[in-house]
């Protein structure tokens, strides 16, 4: 009995409800006659698509800045990096010159640009957050919103030659949704893209087993990132950072510069945000500019909370479980809901209710996480 209660305490009520709901949806969709393989492919795809963005929450929470709603900063850096990389690849005509290697080089360039910009912005952002200790979440939410609004102006002012990015017939402004099909879209995850553009020895990156799609390349990258973060928090630097987040006074007295650790945590979180959005766009096949990333920070926060993280503590397992449950529900809800009642927007409504409900729950548990 006691162990049962222990297990229950470990899982927690919200996770239990959401987990059961997910299982219910999966069962319902199979009962309704949907192909399990197709559904699971979708779940896996979405899981990996959002995984890195959720992973970006871990360094933020561990270093003590709390739920990093300001991950939009990293997202913007990643988007800007991708856009720049795509433009360079277009101007240099890499698709002609380099052939199958072009998407890889573009992806690499996007990641490099994104990472550098995110590291710089993240450091500055960390400096800001050190000055607003105790209200990081409120401030970071609005900093995130401001950045997206500012980037709207940037997207609208950029004049690029790449026709996939810019509006036709206009000298100025990028598209709302830019297709990545001529660039790095799907090279890690879409079997069709991989089979048609890549040489045979790379066909393992994404392939189909019957109806089930296995994006092995993306799994590999995401696993590496998870291992990197996991290892990092076992290194001296990472342990110090966790300490900074856990107990400021104790950490200070043991000679660790808490503020510096917080800045590093914020910077890593921002960089992971940038990498995350690039992997997201890669999987999705489209680059979403303008207001599309406005609420992505919220989705990431909600995911890691569903996974069982608190405002103070987060682990890789929280990332994996949370993203699986959250995205899983959203993926499976759509066909099930459509079968029962024809309202296409219902999963969206569900997403809003679940994600904000879980954040509210976490805030009420921790008294807002403020010291």
């Amino acid at each position, binding site marked *: 009995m006691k162990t049962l209660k222990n297990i229950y305490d470990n899982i927690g009520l919200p996770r239990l409800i959401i987990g059961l709901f997910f299982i219910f949806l999966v069962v319902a969709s199979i009962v309704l006659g949907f192909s399990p393989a197709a559904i699971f492919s979708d779940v896996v795809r979405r899981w990996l698509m959002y995984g890195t963005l959720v992973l970006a929450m871990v360094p933020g929470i561990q270093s003590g800045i709390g739920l990093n709603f300001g991950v939009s900063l990293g997202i913007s850096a990643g988007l800007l990096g991708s856009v720049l990389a795509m433009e360079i690849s277009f101007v240099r005509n890499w698709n002609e010159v380099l052939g199958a290697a072009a998407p890889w080089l573009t992806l690499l360039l996007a990641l490099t640009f994104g990472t550098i910009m995110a590291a710089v*912005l993240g450091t*500055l*952002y960390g*400096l*800001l957050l*050190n*000055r*607003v*200790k*105790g*209200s990081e*979440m*409120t*401030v970071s*939410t*609005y*900093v995130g*919103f*401001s*950045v*997206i*609004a*500012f980037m*709207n*102006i940037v997207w*609208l*002012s950029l004049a690029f030659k790449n026709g996939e990015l810019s509006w036709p017939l206009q000298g*100025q*402004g990028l598209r709302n949704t830019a297709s990545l099909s001529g660039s790095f879209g799907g090279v890690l995850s879409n079997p069709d893209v991989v089979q048609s553009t890549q040489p045979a020895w790379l066909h393992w990156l994404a392939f189909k087993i019957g109806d089930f799609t296995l994006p092995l390349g993306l799994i590999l990258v995401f696993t590496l990132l998870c291992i990197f973060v996991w290892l990092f928090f076992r290194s001296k630097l990472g342990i110090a950072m966790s300490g900074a987040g856990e107990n400021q006074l104790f950490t*200070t007295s043991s000679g660790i*510069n*808490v*503020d510096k650790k917080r800045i590093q945590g914020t910077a890593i979180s921002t960089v992971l945000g940038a990498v995350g959005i690039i992997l997201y766009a890669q999987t999705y096949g489209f680059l979403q500019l303008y207001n599309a990333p406005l609420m992505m920070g*919220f989705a990431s926060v909600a995911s890691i909370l569903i996974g069982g993280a608190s405002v103070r503590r987060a682990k890789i397992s929280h990332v994996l479980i949370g993203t699986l449950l959250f995205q899983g529900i959203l993926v499976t809800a759509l066909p099930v809901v459509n079968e029962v*009642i*024809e*309202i296409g*927007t*219902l999963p969206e*409504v*569900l997403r*809003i*209710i679940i994600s*904000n*409900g879980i*954040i*509210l729950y976490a*805030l*009420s548990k921790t*008294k*807002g*996480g*403020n010291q």
Partner: protein
Amino acid sequence: MSQKTNVFQKAGSFLFDNKVMIAFATICVAAIVLSGSPMSFIVDGVFNRITRNTFTVLALIIPVLAGLGLNFGIVIGAVAAQIAVFWVVYWGFGGFGGMLLSVLIATPLAVLFGFLVGKLFNRMKGAEMIAGLILGYFADGLYQLFFLVIIGGIIPVDNPKLIISSGVGVKNTIDLTGNLKYAIDSVRMVDIITILFYAVLAITVVKVILHLLKKYQLKKGELIFFGVVAILFGISYIPVVERFLSTDRLGLLDALTAVLIVLGVIQLVKIVKSLFFEKEKPKYLLKPILAILVYGLIYGLTYIPQIEEVLLFVKLPVLPFLLIAGLCWFNHKLLSTRLGQNMRTVGQSQSVAMASGIDVDRTRVIAMIISTVLASWGQLIFLQNIGTFSTYGAHTQIAQFAIAALLVGGASVQKATNKQAIIGVILFHTLFIVAPQAGKQLFDNAQIGEYFRVFVSYGVIALSLAMHAWKQFKKEDQPPTMGPNQENSSLPSGTAEQQVGK
């Protein structure tokens, strides 16, 4: 030495406190000049938006007072109003009666919602703002669920004008023309005066009866007030005046003249009072006389053709402005009541309030209820003025814009006044009106102006939240670890969003 620094500090803090407003006013003026739009268009638009939005912005003041910060939860009040509007339209009511019915439905809903929000906020002290923000989104989700699925899906509602053709869910927009549109705006002045007269008459009669029964001490001022109202009511029967008052819109010129006359009369009364009743020294007369001169000067300015043209062009709906004035009066008066004092104490320090025997949690809940109810009324004013009810969009930005407007007026997380609210609404919405045109002139792209104004509304909130938190943090963190960061005590100047936010 200390005196000197005090003066400097004062001047510095004045600039510091008002820098958001000053910077914003500068941006506004620049945008007006750039846009090249005619003044009459801008002023008309601004007054239009003042009518619509000021009430909601004023609804934010009480929570700030009670230490709950900027109430992002007013979305929930707006939701209450929108539920009421939907049913009133569905039942086919309209006009002022329909609006009264909306108020009757919206108010208890808003009280309930405000109570729940207040209870929730009491569990998250210190994180009310982020909680309110998330709660707004959460409420939006529930609202969508209600309007998309439950109406038609569970509650049978049959009305092809309101419901999506599949029979489940409410359409994207509900046209209020012919029912609630201008239900408040179009109340004629005669009717307002008549209603006011009968209301005051009834109250006075009750008071007189109570006075005669020796249960209430009637004050002289109350009788004078009744007399003034009665005279106004009598004047309204003079044919010329009656014709003037039987419209529902008041020209801005007339409104300005009326306000100046009223202000002038008040100052005159002051002069007469101090001369004949209090026998004060003449130097106390200087202020009122100067004031009258200024009013005269302002009135003189209206004869300048350009200004006159603008003033003649703009027409104001009367009742909304009276309601706004009423709310200002309410916010002001509340402070002198016990409840208002309690709120203030709670806002300053919860532990002090607790020690002096104030029920902190209850006071905070009451503040939230009042704010939510006011927000719901504000949303009713907004919807009837705008005339189309965008079912899923009307409430989503309300907190965002109202809070940005309040902050632009110079308010902060801890201090907000009626004046700041009104100045804020004027500045913020001026920018909203001129930004697209200015963007078009400047960048040849109106969209940039539109994005710019959104950016400004987010940026101004980010900036003022950051400044507040920073101040708070500095206060708390004075003695222990200051660390190496303290050396450069300016905001991290590299953060792009902050720079452009100014």
